[in-house]
């Protein structure tokens, strides 16, 4: 494996971890916040009041981190690769729902969640980028630079 492949591999793993954790904790915080606002509606006042509640605010900040880190990951990896490698988030969300919110998770949901993750991991074992030649890069980074 070349230095460039190792660099991309390490960068992909680190950013995948950030994407997964920010998504799981962001969704969990959002869930905690929304449970405190069962009468949420799409009126501007209700939306603003909800966004500024502590748990919803934390959830939104974490989901902004998720959005930015995922955008960076998509800049060198296929969409059909990024989706599966971040799939462990589905399992962690189910576990989070069970542990933190005492949600009843039926065996069908556990099986469904596991199938989704297995499918996504299967796809994740393929080459991350299959479109190198297709896109004309307006911004071509120098090979061998810092990650």
């Amino acid at each position, binding site marked *: 494996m070349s230095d460039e492949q190792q660099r991309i591999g390490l960068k992909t793993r680190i950013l995948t971890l950030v994407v997964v954790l920010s998504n799981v904790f962001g969704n969990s915080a959002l869930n905690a916040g929304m449970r405190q606002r069962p009468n949420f509606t799409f009126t501007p006042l209700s939306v603003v009041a909800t966004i500024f509640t502590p748990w919803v605010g934390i959830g939104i900040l974490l989901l902004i981190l998720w959005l930015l880190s995922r955008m960076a990951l998509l800049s*060198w990896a296929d969409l*059909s690769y990024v989706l599966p490698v971040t799939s462990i*988030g589905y399992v962690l969300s189910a576990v989070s729902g069970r542990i933190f919110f005492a949600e009843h998770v039926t065996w*069908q949901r556990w*099986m*469904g969640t596991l*199938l989704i993750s297995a499918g996504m991991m299967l*796809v994740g074992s*393929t080459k991350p980028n299959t479109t190198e030649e297709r896109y004309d890069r307006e911004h071509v980074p120098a090979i061998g630079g810092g990650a």
Partner: protein
Amino acid sequence: MIRAWLFVGIIVCSTVLGDVLQALEMKRHGEVRFSGGRLARAARELVRRRYLFLAIFFMAVSFFAFMKLLTIADLSFAVPATAGSFVLETILARLVLGERINVRRWAGAGLVAFGVALLAA
């Protein structure tokens, strides 16, 4: 439950559109680097990309629909049910983004479809 699935539908459609447009613009841009001033330069370049704003709009629609869904359904239902977008996105990644989807990727998409069907059971 029908109401919950209606919101799942809205989330899936807006997520698919948001993700495909986002992936398209990020592929056009090329690898984002984090060292030195490269991140700032990448940010300056990315704010000029129209489809990226459209992608963020669709993601916002998905986000608010997801917030509403959480008020009427469990998190352990909401998150995996919206994974139905994965199958559609894999198809569009092939058709729109030109990604090469081999047998393993298609098989994975099939497993996800079964997983979503189990959630609906």
